[in-house]
């Protein structure tokens, strides 16, 4: 890593067929895309050099997103516009760069900055539970605490979901908008919140493919979208 490199934060969306592409393949996709579009990417030093590129937060297979982030380092770049134009000149349908900013010195990388994520969630048609979702949201929002058991690979621990769910609202179109704790600390997936609600109503588990989820954006600990950490140029 050189001091002279320009650090860029790239925001992109992932829709349609691209939702089936797993995180590691998305990384490989962008490595190839960057070589195709001729961006002046910087490579790491060492025995097997690789493009300097890091992603904010992996997105599960099956989820769509309007708010994915990666940080890259380049030797030169004309403008935010130009970088977007170059990257979007060779996209597969469903993937699109929506914003590019330059990061100043001392700005933490995207991965370390992740603290919250906002999701829009719909229930797959035909899989609707036997309770009223609006009422359930009211129940959740008015509860003092909602304790669930969170299983990790090593252990099971109790967590209070109320401390980790920052927003839970029903939308006019019947979908649910939520902002959840994210990042390496206590990452909460929408399915976990739904399972807590399903359990409260005693209707079993929410199936792994019952929710249609779009990640809307990712935020830092101050609730600011990650793109706002940098400046357009």
């Amino acid at each position, binding site marked *: 890593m050189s001091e002279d490199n320009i650090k860029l934060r790239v925001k992109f969306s992932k829709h*349609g067929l691209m939702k*089936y592409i797993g995180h590691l393949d998305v990384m490989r996709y962008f490595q*190839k895309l960057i070589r195709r579009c001729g961006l002046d990417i910087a490579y790491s030093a060492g025995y097997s050099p690789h493009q300097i590129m890091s992603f904010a937060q992996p997105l599960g*297979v099956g989820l769509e997103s309007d708010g994915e982030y990666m940080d890259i380092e380049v030797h030169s770049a004309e403008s935010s516009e130009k970088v977007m134009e170059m990257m979007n000149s060779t996209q*597969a*349908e469903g993937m699109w760069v929506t914003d590019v900013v330059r990061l100043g010195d001392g700005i933490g990388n995207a991965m370390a900055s992740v603290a919250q994520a906002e999701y829009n969630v719909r229930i797959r048609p035909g899989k609707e539970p036997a309770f009223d979702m609006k009422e359930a949201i009211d129940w959740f929002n008015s509860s003092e605490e909602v304790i669930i058991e969170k299983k990790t690979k090593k252990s099971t621990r109790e967590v209070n979901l109320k401390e980790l769910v920052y927003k839970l609202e029903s939308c006019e179109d019947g979908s649910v908008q939520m902002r959840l704790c994210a990042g390496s600390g206590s990452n909460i997936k929408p399915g976990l919140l739904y399972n807590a609600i399903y359990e409260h109503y005693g209707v079993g588990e929410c199936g792994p493919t019952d929710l249609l989820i779009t990640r809307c954006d990712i935020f830092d600990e101050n609730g600011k979208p990650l793109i706002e950490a940098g400046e357009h140029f």
Partner: protein
Amino acid sequence: MKKTAIDDEILLSIEKPERYIGNEINAIFKDKSKVDIRFAMCFPDVYEIGMSHLGIQILYDMFNKREDVWCERVYSPWIDLDREMRTRHIPLFALESQDPIKDFDFLGITLQYEMCYTNILQVLDLSGIALKAVERTDDDPIVIGGGPCTYNPEPIADFFDMFYIGEGEISYDEIFDTYKKIKSEGGSRQDFLRAACQIPGIYVPQFYEATYNEDGTLKSFDATIPEAPLTVKKQIVMDMDDVSYPDKPLVPFIRVTQDRVVLEVMRGCIRGCRFCQAGQIYRPVRERSLDFLKKKAQAMLDSTGQDEITLSSLSSSDYSHLGELVLWLIENYRDKYINISLPSLRIDSFALDIMSRVQDVKKGSLTFASEAGSQRLRNVINKGITEEDIMRGSAEAFKGGWNKVKLYFMLGLPTETDEDVKAIAQLSDAVAMNYYDTVPKEDRKGIRVQVTASASFFIPKPFTPFEWAPMCTAEEFQRKAYVLSDEFTKQLNRKSLKFQYHENYLSELEGLFARGDRKLSELLINAYKKGCIYDSWSECFDIDKWHAAIEECGVDVAFYTQRERSLDELFPWDFIDIGVTKKFLKDQWLEAKAERVTPNCRQQCSGCGAACFGGGVCFERR
């Protein structure tokens, strides 16, 4: 958003949904209402294997250059999706349009190895196309086969409307033009097949009839309609620079077996190893110019963003401009962090020099395809590599810093004795010893040399000098493998040696189909109906089902595999003309038995017959 043939919920419940969605970089999308011919190109194995195949990349690009053709791809659904499609009655579909294969004009299936034959039936069955060509109607696609297994298409002849013998670049325009003409005149499937069988390289099995002698051997093979030619001549490209080659190969999302840009430097091989079918059927050797390859390398790297390029051919060391090409690639792509991979190199000082420039010596291993352990047996198979070559090459490699060596061998070669078998372990040991003799103790840094000997079982193939040869039984293969395993444990450097070998029953079946005839199609159907698919995958291969099918169909496996054919026997594949004559192959068989080697094409012409194509190495100045 583009549609998917498979429901979202199913896609999310199976392994690697990326296999089934298409949408890759450089995939071609067209308006189906604006094309005359829809072609589904199939590799009857899983996506990661099929996407690694150069031939499909070439034809996909070439067909789609025609405005009136839309060529799409289809691969075998993996067993998880296969199950879902059967229970839910979902028809097999093409990746680009996601439309059912049954709606297409052509289904082209590439036949790269015999053990994919049950997957052909899977693809037809899931598509809702009758397994047997004669049972199809005008609504079904024309099913056409191509690739190396078409050099004996007889075991699968019933399943194909036609086979294309040779390299696809030559006759497809004529096939498409003929198809369009007959369709526009309101002609039927039969009308098209009658016209197609007159196109050079095309074989329409239903217009031929085989009769058999009492002992089961072929008695006669005749055309049943006057239009069908008595011999079908393979079609090959003679000017390798004036032929379609992709500038924009497909870029898969998931990691596939060959996940890199493939630059085909030449076709054919000058060597003439007697067990090797590719060495005969791709004769004569035809090279591409440096200029053509530089342009293609640049175009493909630019359009794919791949970080690796590999040179492809049967024997890269024999490409005349190899040094220049590799130096050019290094000069132009090293600072762009593009890896250059050089498979199928003969290990000598020149090869080691360029390999040390393009790869990490510490990680890489060197491969010697010795094929046999003893010099006597190497003479039988005409493998022009000596123990001295291996010792010299490996010594230089060890000095250059390599410490991993792979040795490839075959067990069950014609005339092989147990002494020849044991010689494999002894040669491996000698290579390991060579390391300790070459590299002084202080330079070894505590590293022990690793010699991996890998043995496959010899399978006689059509259009080779060994097409007359008997093949071992599965039990005999196993016995040989045990003899060899045992011999390995007796070697001085046994701790540096590793020995591995193939599935013996799989090899026996491959041998059955390699030299099989039309009578075997019933066996394939029977085995498929018992659930045999993906036979080349160890997790799927079920020998018990195969044995049951063989018993029910009354197939005498020994007749096909263990019998030494008489020199005047008529073979099921004799109607195909590969340029190389049967007389040449017969002479080579006798030379093999006499343990005599034949010089390679650049040393001296042996008059194999391939000169009839009028070009290539046959006309180079020696």
